[in-house]
């Protein structure tokens, strides 16, 4: 065991290394680790929050689905009702339209009947007149008796 100046060199080196660690290593590392600690804690808290939000969202989701189902059912029943109404309406419409057509046809028939009778009457009058004319040709002056013929034909 010779002691020599290595002792002093080592002590000096020791002081320098401790100083270096104290200044440039330890505080940085400790700060870094504390920062990470808070970050991890924050992250865990955020994860918890997210979990909670997810649960709430799941509940809300269930509610929405339920609501949607109800709404859909309502819409379907409404549509059914409306369909029934439409069917009824068109039934009655068709009925009244048919009625109207029947009436129109009847009126047309009536009108044609009247027309035909009118024509017939006119023709009969003409025929009668022709006959009368033939008969009276010789003894009646058409000019003198024209008023009687006209009166007769209007009476027919």
């Amino acid at each position, binding site marked *: 065991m010779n002691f*020599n100046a290595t002792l002093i060199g080592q*002590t000096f*080196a020791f002081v320098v290394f401790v100083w270096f660690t*104290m200044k440039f*290593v330890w505080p*940085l590392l400790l700060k870094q*680790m504390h920062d990470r600690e808070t970050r991890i804690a924050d992250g865990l808290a955020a994860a918890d929050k997210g979990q909670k939000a997810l649960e709430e969202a799941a509940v809300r989701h269930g509610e929405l689905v339920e609501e949607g189902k109800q709404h859909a059912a309502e819409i379907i029943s409404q549509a059914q009702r409306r369909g029934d109404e439409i069917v009824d309406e068109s039934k009655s419409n068709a009925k009244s339209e048919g009625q109207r057509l029947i009436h129109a046809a009847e009126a047309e028939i009536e009108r044609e009947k009247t027309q035909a009778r009118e024509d017939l009457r006119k023709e009969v009058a003409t025929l009668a007149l022709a006959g009368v004319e033939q008969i009276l040709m010789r003894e009646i002056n058409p000019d003198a008796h024209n008023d009687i013929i006209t009166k007769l034909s209007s009476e027919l």
Partner: protein
Amino acid sequence: MAAEEGTLTSNEYIQHHLQNMVFGKLPADYERVDGQVLEQAAWTLAHSPQEAKDMGFWAVNVDTLGWSVFLGIFFCFMFHRVAKRASEGAPSGFANFVELMVEMVDKNVSDIFHGKSLLIAPLALTIFVWVILMNMMDIVPVDWLPILAQTLSGDPHLYFKVVPTTDPNITFGLSIGVFILIIFYSIKMKGVGGFIAELTLHPFNSKNIFVQIIFIPFNLVLEGIGLIAKPVSLALRLFGNLYAAELIFLLIAMLGYYQLPFHFVWAVFHILVIPLQAYVFMMLTIVYLSMAHDTH
């Protein structure tokens, strides 16, 4: 290895391994080990243990101090690199290891040391990692680095002691640093008077002032020994453990090819000793400083 070096006896082999590479000044008219006489005083490397002794105090163990400083710089560099890359994200690889160390040291310091000090924890970290690194050099097979150094320097008889903690200069250098801090904290916390009182008024104490004066020398001797014993035991414990282990590695290295299993077994066992001694050094440093820090 002894067989390869041929002429070396096992005794010489071990002695060669235990001799430091000493750089110092030899006086004028000094007859060197090879018979050459120096005309004037010269700074040189010692070529024998006797020359190393004759260089006196102002000589340096180039090998152990060099390795010690190199490992210290290595420690500072590696840890600073991790510390500088301030990332809050998940640490990986070496950063994990560094943080493990820091956490362990921080926990131990806060468990033992109750004052508030910016110095103690970094001090403990430096001691722990640095001493581990220095002890680790013991795991490197005993002849590798010396033979490498001898080849590189071209001097086949170059002394090259690799494990810094097997050099008492190194361990005492550390413990002197701790000792200075013990005295510094004692005086800082208790004042000069308080420190002196602590050394002279315990353990024997009397209300009678004349009796007390008689007690003072005894107290001083007891407390003084107690105080000095701290750095001495700190340094000698580390030195003794590593020196003994190194010696056993040397003995194993002389077994020829049989050394391989023995070396492996002893290295495995020694892996337990390495961090344990570093841990003990660190813990005792913290304990001593916390004792110095506490006021009674």
